[in-house]
């Protein structure tokens, strides 16, 4: 599903150049649930940004579902993001003046799905994350866990190939974190490919595979016995 070869990325910091990713080789199969771990500055967020086409690599190859991702125009990148990727952010990033339903429907709007169909589909996904009764609520009327579940529903609404989650539990207490992870595991059980960036050990162990990043290189890549979050909920 995802294949990257010898990926390099550096940032200019004034006159200095900061080499963040120093040759990453990495493969993700369909249906995997991968945790990307590392301390801050290890390059895990940069990697996720490149995978999410929010940023470009300096060198190296990136293939997503058989499509080479290279030299994309803004418009093309937007189309690919919409078609291939769903984002889940640490700070949820819901649009605060739109109801939960409208937030979920937004990616479908950019896919030019007709309004009615959009709303029906969005409602289905809200139901899946257990928030159907909150469809008409604004984000400000929802708890943190609910917000993240709306964000997950939004990420899934466009039926992307890969879900990218950047510290999805970073802003939540541990109980809510496990609820969110439970949801992510269930989505993965349905066959969706998910990448989770985290620095929390327990969250990482709820995935099926852990990739450790340190100073811009992968230092460890191992399959783990998945801890089901459901038992803590």
């Amino acid at each position, binding site marked *: 599903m995802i294949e990257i070869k010898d990926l390099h990325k550096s940032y200019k910091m004034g006159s200095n150049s900061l080499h963040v990713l120093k040759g990453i080789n990495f493969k993700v199969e369909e249906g995997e649930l991968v945790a990307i771990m590392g301390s801050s500055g290890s390059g895990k967020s940069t990697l996720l940004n490149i995978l*999410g086409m929010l940023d470009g690599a300096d060198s190296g190859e990136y293939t997503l579902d058989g499509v080479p991702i290279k030299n994309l125009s*803004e*418009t093309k990148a*937007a189309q690919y993001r919409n078609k291939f990727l769903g984002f889940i952010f640490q*700070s949820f*990033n819901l649009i605060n*003046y739109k109801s939960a339903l409208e937030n979920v429907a937004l990616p479908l709007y950019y896919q030019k799905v007709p309004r009615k169909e959009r709303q029906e589909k969005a409602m289905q996904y809200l139901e899946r994350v257990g928030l159907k009764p909150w469809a008409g609520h604004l984000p400000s009327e929802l708890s943190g866990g609910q917000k993240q579940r709306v964000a997950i529903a939004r990420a899934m609404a*466009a039926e992307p190939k890969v879900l990218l989650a950047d510290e999805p539990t970073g802003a939540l207490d541990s109980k809510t974190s496990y609820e969110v992870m439970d949801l992510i595991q269930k989505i993965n059980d349905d066959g969706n490919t998910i990448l989770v960036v985290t620095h929390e050990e327990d969250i990482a162990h709820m995935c099926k595979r852990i990739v450790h990043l340190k100073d811009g290189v992968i230092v460890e890549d191992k399959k783990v016995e998945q801890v089901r979050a459901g038992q803590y909920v």
Partner: protein
Amino acid sequence: MFDRDVWQEIFNTLKTNKLRTFLTGFSVGWAIFILVMLLASVNGMQNGFVGQFNDDATNSIFVRPGTTSKAYGGFEAGRRIQLKNDDLEYIKQSFPNDIEYISARYYANATARYKAETGSYSVQATHPDHQAIEKTLVIAGRYINEADVVNKAKVAVIGRKVAEDLFKDEEPLGKFVEFNGLPFRVIGIFTDDGDDNAERRIYAPVSTYQRIYGNTNDINAIALTYNPNYDLSEALEFSERLEILMKRRYKISPEDQAGLYVWNYAEAFDNISSFTAVLKGIGIGVGFLILVAGIVGIGNIMVFTIKERTKEIGVRKALGARPRQIINLVLLESVFITAISGFVGLAFAWMILAAVGPAIQTPAFSNPSVSLSVVVTATIILIIAGVLAGLLPAMKAANVKPIVALSDK
């Protein structure tokens, strides 16, 4: 474009920033208001000027004799020129295709008496054509006709004021009134839009007065109108030809300014129209500059809005919004604020003009109003202004990098 989501977003930003939106919109509305009012004022001035001259046919020329100031053709300077009856015929035959109406004028004063009432009035003895040249409005009876001139009939067309002064409540038509002791029959009453003084005038057949004053052929002036289809340059060219002809006939030096006066209304109109054109230009210029200030204000507010919504725009881009869609959103919002506030300004100006305009009727300023074309132009300007105001901020928004917008730091 007419998408519910887009409008929802626009209304939301406007709603959350009511005061800011109002203040910005106000600057544009105000600018359009001033622009329309300025144009209306210029229009009012033009109406006023035109109204002043409309009293007479605007295609008229007056020929008046003077005293020569240069020796020419064997004559010494200081010769008095005297126009005669046959000059009329001569002009008519010289310019058969140019002349529309032509009439002589013979000036006299009359002490008029009817029963116990007396008054002193000026008399213009004319030909029938004079009615068309002076645009005399006969409200009762008739004007002088050809038969009156041929018969040297003692008939008079009197002004409304004259009728009021002399006849009080009596019906003047058909009554005899004495001018300097001679009885004239009143055949008509006229009004004049120009002013009250014109209504204290009396018209009589030119031949009648020439006989009274010693059976003369003399006339004091010639009034004529030319082909109304002439444009300004043709009109001026014609009056030049007329002046050359008359100066040659009376052996006046072509350079002599005092020997003969040919006064063409078109010249005055030329001056007025270039004057109002300049005023209009100034009006548009000033209004436009104020509008520019308004546009900058809108642009400023859009920059702010985008700054506040950077994160949201980043999220949208992450969800698959294309740059075009972001640009459209910002442009539409900008055009919307500009257009709505502009229309409010336009409507206000229009309402004020509709309410007050027709009441303003002074000689130099009357009925300020705006035409449909001004409204249409203003609308187009508004939409262009909205696009201009939104363009830079929109491009800025489209260039927002999602990762920068989404970084939580």
